[in-house]
């Protein structure tokens, strides 16, 4: 079992003919993802790698192929519009990999998505993967293994680190979701925790957060009240200086809020096991799972 994506996912890739889009589409197809369509305005009628029909609009792709998920690889200046195009076409899940989208653009996207049934993951994220079934994103597929740990993270490579630790200790993953490092994004930590909590195929979760914002504190609050499954967490940015943007636009400590210490305290109070270092994320969860047996 898994959340959001599985064998039945039918993927459209927006920006399939760009170099990054093409490269990662092939990687996803090699992994077994069912890529049913691509979209590049002006290139409708082409066929990608002799397999995937390319359309001018997502609307057509949806009509002709019944795609129910989208992966957005469109460059930052046009990415917000591409997300809205997929929302308009009724695509259920939109995964935006693109980094560097202006915050004001995402603010408008978020406002226009209110009340719509589409869900957004990202932007500026590695994507989502259900090991052995469906990979939508840029994560290296081979480090994953099917299993029952859910992974939620704002960071890309730090997620790979957690996944690799789990896999090399024999623990597989139900689904791994990279929600992205931008200050305004789609699914939040708490949205993902809820999904994993309801998923019978997920027995435990690793939550990877970082400084900035209050998403981890909100997740902690929800976990405290509702979550029965073991959760381990790591918060990056313990040593980050205030007021500086650490790579991710969202990772910034401002005016004493969004600190690692505050997030860790909130998570601990919710019964979440905290990994002291990024090297012990899997071990911390495994210990927590054993303690609950």
């Amino acid at each position, binding site marked *: 079992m898994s959340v959001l994506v599985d064998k039945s996912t039918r993927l459209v890739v927006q920006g399939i003919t760009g170099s990054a889009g093409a490269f990662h589409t092939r990687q996803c197809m090699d992994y077994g993802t069912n890529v049913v369509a691509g979209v590049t305005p002006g290139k409708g009628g082409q066929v990608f790698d002799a397999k995937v029909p390319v359309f001018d609009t997502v609307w057509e792709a949806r009509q002709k192929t019944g795609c129910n998920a989208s992966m957005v690889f469109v460059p930052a200046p046009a990415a917000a519009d591409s997300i809205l195009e997929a929302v308009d076409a009724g695509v259920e899940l939109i995964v935006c990999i693109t980094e560097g989208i*202006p915050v004001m653009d*995402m*603010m408008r996207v978020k406002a226009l998505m209110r009340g719509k049934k589409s869900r957004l993951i990202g932007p500026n994220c*590695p994507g989502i993967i259900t090991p052995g079934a469906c990979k939508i994103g840029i994560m290296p597929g081979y480090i994953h293994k099917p299993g029952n740990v859910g992974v939620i993270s704002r960071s*890309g*490579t730090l997620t790979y680190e957690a996944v*690799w630790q789990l896999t090399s200790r024999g623990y597989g993953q139900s689904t791994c979701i990279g929600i992205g490092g931008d*200050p305004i994004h789609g699914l939040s930590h708490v949205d993902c925790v809820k999904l994993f909590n309801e998923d019978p195929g997920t027995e435990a979760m690793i939550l990877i957060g970082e400084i900035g914002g209050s998403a981890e504190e909100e997740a902690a609050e929800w976990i405290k009240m509702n979550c029965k499954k073991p959760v381990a967490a790591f918060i990056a940015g313990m040593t980050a200086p205030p007021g500086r943007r650490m790579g991710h636009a969202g990772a910034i400590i401002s005016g004493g809020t969004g600190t690692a210490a505050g997030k860790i305290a909130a998570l601990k109070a919710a019964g979440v096991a905290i990994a002291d270092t990024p090297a012990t994320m899997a071990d911390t969860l495994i210990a927590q799972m054993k303690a609950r047996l």
Partner: protein
Amino acid sequence: MNIHEHQARKLLQRFDVATTRGKVASTLDEAEQIARELGAVEIVVKAQIHAGGRGKGEFKNGFKGGVHVRKTPEEVREVAAKMLGQILVTHQTGPAGRVVNKVLVAESAEIAREIYFAILLDRATAAPLIVSSTEGGVEIETFAAKSPEKIIREAIDPLAGLQPFQTRKLAKQLGFESSQLKSAAKLFEGLYRTFVAFDCSMVEVNPLVVTTKGDVLALDAKFNFDDNALYRHPEIAAMRDFAEEDPREVEASKHGLSYIGLDGNIACLVNGAGLAMATMDIIKFYGGEPANFLDVGGGATEEQVTEALKILIADKKVKAILVNIFGGIMKCDIIAQGIINAAKTVKLSVPLVVRLEGTNVERGKQLLKESGLALIAADDLADAAKKVVSAAKGK
């Protein structure tokens, strides 16, 4: 990205935000000339550097304060002479201070009342938010923590924008008299338009003042711009003052690297922002001090890795370097080749610990082995951190 006060004033004037009259001067003649043209009773001369705390700062030549009020053009010239070309140290500049290349010469406002007014992007609601207070000229974070009831918040619908009634309501809440309502509302509207037009993440006016004559003015403004949106604002990008930034950060940004200098002695080179922060954390956990944050990004090239390593090696404080790569898009053999190339052009004078994992890891390790470089290989993240901390201590 930050800009100077005199540049901020120009942006505000574009949207009819009232400020005091004044101009920026680079020379003593200019300073005197501007003062003469202003013909004001009192003239303020302000050192133009990005750091805050200018008024309470001290020049390395012994002259106290980066903000002064004078009466005549001759006096303005005299005070400008003590500032231009001199190094100003404030609590935000660090002991090195900043060279003052320009001064703002403006009429001095007779202040009756000071107000704090800021517009920022609130990530929790994904919408612009106005934060204001009748207590201007204060350090707002400390003030908000002490007297949260005195902070006035007004949320703005991102699609509809700031509505006229909201500007009137704010004016009332901030204690403006009925006769001042119109000019206050106009100023708020202008600030919001500035905020949107230039893709700001924050516009902070502190203080916004009411003069003894009843005029409403933005006396000082601080802008934060969304770096992601700079591509569509070339004029803002052109305002970037490289002299105000850490030269290591400037060099890194030329190569598309995300670098932030810190005070420790263990340099790190990592792919991905989250992993880069976590690497700093684990160095600290094992008793070391990180010298920097450096994210080479997801798709870095061999050249970028080489340049990144050169920046780290050039830093005299650095006693050891940790390369921590989890290859996804980024292939480990590319990183290995980048390290080898860097070692060919610059002498590797400090211990280098390398931890590689992920795509093409075996080829990467093989390349490093064959290169004959004196590297310390690490098996995992904890091992790497322990090794680099002890290497920095000379063990």
